[in-house]
């Protein structure tokens, strides 16, 4: 073991994260290397200093200012899809997901047929990212058969699809909505949202972000409907 390798293990060594053999190798090096012994001692001392930093007390205005800011803040409502899927459990969710996926595929084929007659140029095809959820056979079919470069206007209408399909399904959610009436007062959507970069919130699954217009759109949508909403942060 050389000094560089030894240094890499300082934290693991003092936090007991090395296995028996690694500890022996590490200590064998220490025994022969004065420099590493000194550096390890300094390492420990500087960590002690860090741990001894006193706690900072928030100022007396902290609470007042925060209360004022919270009074101006509205609880944001949940995006459509989440609201529909969240209260559903087990089979209901799977059934709904299946229906949605099927609709997406059907619409995909519909536009596929249309574009076949219009623009057969498929040159920009790039291997679509193989993203998260287990790809099902159906997706592969779609991937192979769908021209990946679709005229943008038609993509636009494709993009609108998920929302309008949700509108059809809305009755499902009425009875099972768990949120209480007090919070629903604030459901005016999007008053503050524009100033709020989504990335600062919980890591938002990409399906809740504005749909990007791109070639593997359909793959994404399918993945979404199969991703359980309770996953992620």
């Amino acid at each position: 073991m050389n000094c560089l390798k030894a240094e890499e293990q300082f934290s693991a060594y003092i936090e007991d994260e090395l296995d028996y053999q690694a500890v022996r190798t590490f200590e064998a090096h220490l025994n022969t290397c004065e420099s590493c012994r000194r550096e390890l001692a300094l390492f420990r001392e500087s960590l002690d200093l860090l741990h001894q930093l006193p706690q900072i007390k928030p100022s007396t205005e902290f609470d007042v200012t925060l209360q004022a800011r919270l009074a101006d803040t509205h609880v944001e409502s949940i995006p459509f899809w989440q609201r529909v899927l969240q209260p559903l459990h087990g089979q209901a969710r799977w059934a709904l997901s299946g229906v949605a996926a099927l609709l997406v595929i059907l619409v995909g084929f519909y536009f596929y047929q249309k574009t076949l007659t219009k623009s057969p140029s498929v040159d920009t095809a790039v291997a679509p990212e193989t993203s998260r959820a287990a790809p099902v056979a159906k997706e592969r079919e779609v991937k192979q058969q769908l021209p990946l470069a679709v005229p943008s206007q038609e993509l636009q209408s494709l993009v609108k699809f998920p929302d309008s399909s949700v509108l059809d399904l809305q009755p499902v959610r009425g009875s099972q909505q768990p949120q209480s009436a007090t919070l629903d007062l604030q459901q005016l959507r999007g008053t503050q949202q524009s100033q709020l970069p989504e990335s600062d919130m919980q890591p938002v699954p990409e399906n809740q972000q504005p749909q990007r217009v791109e070639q593997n759109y359909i793959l994404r949508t399918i993945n979404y409907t199969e991703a359980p909403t309770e996953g992620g942060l």
Partner: protein
Amino acid sequence: MPDLDDELMKQCQQGNIEAFDLIVRRNQVPLVNFIARFLGDQDSAEDLAQETFVRMFKAIKRYKSGAAKFSTWMYHIASNLCKNELRNRGRRGRFFADGVATESSSGTEPTEEDLIATAPAHVSLQPSNQLEQKEREYAVQSAISELPERYRLPLVLRDLQELSYEEISETLNLPLGTTKSRINRARLMLKDKLRSFVESS
């Protein structure tokens, strides 16, 4: 083990907004400390801690109970705000390396009078001890502030906020191995920065 903050968030979701007050009360000190130690600047820290609470409040309905620890969520939001703040400072050409608690606005090494004047009045501490303590805090805070962001953030989460490696890797969306090696690297840098202070005292 059920997490109390998580329970309180569930209460908020059921319409009991007062539960959020408790969340604030339980978390404001760790949050302000985290941001203040990271930025080396208490005023901005309070502003960003408030912003963190505001964003959590807005997102009450989107919070997914049990999917991750509440603290991971909170530090994730705060970390992103901190990174933005540093980026904005870079753009404005401002940089603070002076210590949080020294509160000397000049940015230079605090004088003895500065230190005594701003030291918390604590009866049991002799003035000389107070001075020593202030000097030590200044040295350590300066060393932290000099670390590059991607090392500083995990170091503060680990050694000051005492999060586990797993929690830090979730908070920062980093692989566990990367998290561990960054923290070790950060501590090695800190050791080098504190060398002269440790050896002179």
